[in-house]
C-alpha cells in the first residue's frame, strides 16, 4: 500500500486509478447491478391476462406489490426444496470440512509418506466439472455398471437403491463432498503451514502428544480459515443445481424442483413465469445472505469470547 506519497503527485495521476477501474466498473454495472435491479423490479410485477389472453392488449404487466413474495413463501414446492437442501447441507458441510481438516492435519503431521501424491490426488476432483462428477458417480450408483453392486452381489449382501429416498441424499452429498474436500483441504493446509514451528516446541517439551497438539494448538490457530471455508461452503451448498440436474435423467426421485434453484429455473423457463421466479430468486439470495452472514457473526462472537477468557 502506498498512499503516503499522495501529496507530491502530479495532476495526471489523479484520474489514473479511475481509468484502471473503468472496465471492472462497467462490467459490474452491466452484469451485476443492472440484472439485480431488474430482478427486484420484476419481482414486484405480474402479468395480468384479460379475457382469453389473445390479442396484443390482452396481456399486460401490472404492479403486484408483495404478491409474488407471499406466493413464493406459501409455495409448498419451494419450501420442500428448501428443506431438502437444508438436509443435504447438514450432511455436506460438516462431512466435507471435517474430512478437509482431517486430511490437512495428516498432511501437516510428521513422518508421513507419499504426501505429494496423496495431496494431488485429493485435490484432483476440484478440476472436474460438477456435471462430469455427478455423471461419473451417477454411473457408479447404477446397479448395471457399478463395481459396488458387483461386490455386494458376490458377497450376497442386500443391494440398496442409491438413487431413491434417504440414500439419494447420501448419494448427492457424496458428489459434493468428493468435489469439494480437496480444495478446502488446501486452504486449511496452507494456513497450517504458516504456523511457525516454534509454537509447537514448547508443547513438545511439555510432552504433548501429536493429537493434543492438533486439538489444542493447530485447530484453534487455523480457526479463521475454517470459518472462511464454512462460509463459502454454506453459500455453495444452498445453491446446488448442476449435480441434481445431472442425476435427474437417471432416476425418477429427482424432480424438476428438487432444489430451490431448480424450482426458480423451472418457473422462469418451464412455466415462463419470470415474475414468480424473480421473487423466489430474491428470497433465496436473502436467505443465503442471512444464513452465511449469521454464521460469520456467530463465529466472530465466539472467537471474541474465547479471546476474553
Amino acid at each position, binding site marked *: 500500500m502506498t498512499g503516503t506519497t499522495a501529496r507530491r503527485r502530479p495532476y495526471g495521476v489523479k484520474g489514473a486509478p479511475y481509468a484502471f477501474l473503468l472496465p*471492472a466498473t462497467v462490467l459490474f454495472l452491466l452484469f451485476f447491478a443492472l440484472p439485480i435491479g431488474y430482478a427486484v423490479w420484476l419481482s414486484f410485477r405480474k402479468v395480468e391476462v384479460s379475457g382469453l389472453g389473445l390479442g396484443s392488449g390482452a396481456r399486460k404487466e401490472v404492479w403486484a406489490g408483495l404478491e409474488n413474495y407471499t406466493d413464493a413463501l406459501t409455495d409448498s414446492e419451494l419450501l420442500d426444496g428448501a428443506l431438502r437442501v437444508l438436509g443435504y447441507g447438514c450432511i455436506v458441510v460438516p462431512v466435507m470440512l471435517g474430512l478437509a481438516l482431517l486430511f490437512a492435519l495428516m498432511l501437516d503431521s510428521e513422518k508421513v509418506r507419499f504426501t505429494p501424491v496423496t495431496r494431488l490426488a485429493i485435490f484432483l476432483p476440484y478440476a472436474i*466439472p460438477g*456435471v462430469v462428477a455427478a455423471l461419473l458417480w451417477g454411473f457408479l450408483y447404477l446397479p448395471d455398471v457399478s463395481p459396488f453392486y458387483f461386490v455386494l452381489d458376490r458377497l450376497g449382501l442386500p443391494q440398496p437403491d442409491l438413487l431413491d429416498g434417504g440414500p439419494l441424499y447420501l448419494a448427492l452429498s457424496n458428489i459434493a463432498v468428493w468435489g469439494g474436500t480437496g480444495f478446502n483441504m488446501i486452504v486449511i493446509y496452507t494456513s497450517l503451514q504458516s504456523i511457525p514451528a516454534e509454537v509447537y516446541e514448547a508443547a513438545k517439551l511439555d510432552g504433548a502428544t501429536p493429537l493434543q497438539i492438533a486439538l489444542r494448538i493447530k485447530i484453534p490457530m487455523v480457526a479463521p480459515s475454517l470459518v472462511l471455508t464454512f462460509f463459502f461452503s454454506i453459500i455453495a451448498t444452498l445453491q446446488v443445481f448442476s449435480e441434481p440436474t445431472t442425476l435427474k435423467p437417471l432416476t425418477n426421485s429427482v424432480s424438476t424442483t428438487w432444489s430451490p434453484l431448480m424450482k426458480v429455473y423451472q418457473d422462469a423457463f418451464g412455466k415462463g413465469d419470470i415474475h414468480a421466479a424473480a421473487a423466489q430468486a430474491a428470497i433465496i439470495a436473502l436467505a443465503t445472505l442471512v444464513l452465511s452472514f449469521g454464521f460469520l457473526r456467530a463465529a466472530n462472537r465466539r472467537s471474541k469470547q474465547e479471546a476474553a477468557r
Partner: protein
Amino acid sequence: MSSLAVRKARPAAGTTPGTAQGPPLRRRVALLPTLTLLLGAVYCLLPVAWVVIAATKSGRELFSTFTFLPGTGFADNVSDLSAYRDGVYWQWMGNSALYAGLGALLSTVVSAFSGYALATYRFRGRETLFNVLLAGVLMPPVILAVPQYLLLAEADLTDSYLSVLLPQILSPYGVYLARIYAAAAVPADVVEAGRMDGASEWRIFTRIALPMMVPGMVTVFLFQFVAVWNNFLLPYIMLSDDEKFPITLGLHTLLEQGANTPALYTLVITGAFLAVLPLVALFLVVQRFWSLDLLSGAVKS
C-alpha cells in the same frame, strides 16, 4: 511464494536439545496419517479410475465384464463419439476451450487493472468500490443469470457466444486476489521511481508493475479458467443451439438422451473421460506454479 508443492522445514524430531531421544520407532513412518491420506486418495481417484477403464469397454463389455477389467473398445468408442451428430462433441470441446481460454484471459486483464489500481493508488471511494465489487461474489448465480438472460434477450444477444462470455469476465474473486497480490508484489517506491523518471501511469503499469504481478495473475487465470470450464448454469440458461454448447452442457444433453438407451452409455462415458483429460493435464503441468496460499490471503510481503 509457496505453491501446491509447498514444503516447510521443521526441525527433525528428537534434535531439540534437552529432550530425551525418542526410541528408534519414532523414525519410522507415521502409519495412521499415511493410511488416512492413502484412503482419501483412493476415494478421490476411484471415479476417475472407473471412467478411464469404462471408456475402454465396448457396449457389450460394459455390462458383462467386471468393472475394473479393461475392455477392447476404446478406439471404436472414440470414433463413435466423433461420428455422433457429425462430430458435435469436438465442437463442444472447442467451445469450452474458447469460453474458458478467452474468458479467463479477459478476466485476468480486468482483474490486473483493478487489483493494481486498488493496491497502489489512494483515491476517493476506493474501499467502497472494492467492497461493492466483492459483494458480487455473494450473489447466487441464479439471481444474476435469469435477469441477465432477460436483459441480453432485449439486446438480442441470447443464444450467442457473447451471452456466455460477457457475464463471466468480471470475477470479484479475481479482483480480490489481484489486489492482494499487487499490494505484496509491487513496491511503492518502484512505482514512485517510475514517476520521478517521468513515465506515464500506463507505462509504469505495463513496464514495471505488470511483470512483477505475473505469478499472481497466472493463479487468477487458472482459477477463472477452471470456473468458466466447469460452469453449467449460465450456458444452460443462455444457450439453446447445441452447436454453441460448452462440454458440460453437451455431456448433460448426451446423458439426457442416453439415460434410457443403454446403447448410448458408452458414448456418455467416453465423452466424460475425454472431457476430464484437458483439465487434469493442465493441473498436472501447472500445479507447481499455483500459489494457493493466496486463497487464504497469506501473502508474505
